[in-house]
């Protein structure tokens, strides 16, 4: 089964149902957008788009934190862990993704380590948690293309 997703970046696309995640609380600042499709980017599966199903304009670039930060360690505060559990996520098999933002003016990549996304591939639910990370983002210089 596929779901038709209307996007401003890629036109109307068909996404397999098993790539649609439900965020019961949405993302911070995007509380109303709860359904997201995971779409591989032109760089393959290591960088993906999380495209909101209910707003064609809203899509986040995401990657595993270790793609850019090999020593990344996830520290979820107790409150977020128990909230994730309340929302039906299984804390054991969770996948972590970090939101990326490319600053093309300064040729740098910001990796948002303070508020990663946890995805549960079993229940297809997700949550954005706030960690105790010292800095909100880690900035990595980009090679000029």
């Amino acid at each position: 089964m596929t779901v038709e997703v209307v996007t401003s970046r890629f036109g109307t696309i068909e996404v397999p149902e098993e790539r649609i995640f439900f965020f019961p609380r949405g993302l911070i600042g995007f509380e109303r957008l709860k359904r997201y499709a995971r779409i591989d980017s032109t760089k393959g599966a290591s960088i993906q788009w999380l495209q909101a199903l209910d707003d064609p304009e809203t899509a986040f670039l995401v990657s595993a934190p270790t793609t850019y930060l090999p020593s990344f360690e996830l520290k979820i505060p107790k409150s977020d862990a128990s909230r994730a559990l309340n929302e039906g996520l299984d804390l054991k098999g969770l996948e972590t993704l970090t939101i990326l933002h490319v600053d093309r003016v300064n040729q740098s990549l910001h990796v948002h380590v303070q508020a990663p996304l946890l995805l549960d591939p079993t229940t297809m639910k997700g949550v954005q948690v706030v960690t105790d990370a010292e800095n909100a983002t880690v900035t990595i210089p980009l090679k000029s293309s």
Partner: protein
Amino acid sequence: MLVLTRKSGEGLWIGDDIRIQVLEVRDGQVRIGVDAPEEKGIYRDELYDRIRKFNIQASRSKSEDIDSL
């Protein structure tokens, strides 16, 4: 917004599971205590705002942004 006046040591309840207490008022600063269920995230505004702003900025990523990664 509901506005209430409280003195040091006084508090208020939100529903039956969240209690906010004013612990101390001194030199323009207020110390606040919050008793809430564990799953309630409690954040300072500035932290929450920072995350929200980052999310909003990131949500506008362009397809071309990926070329430089």
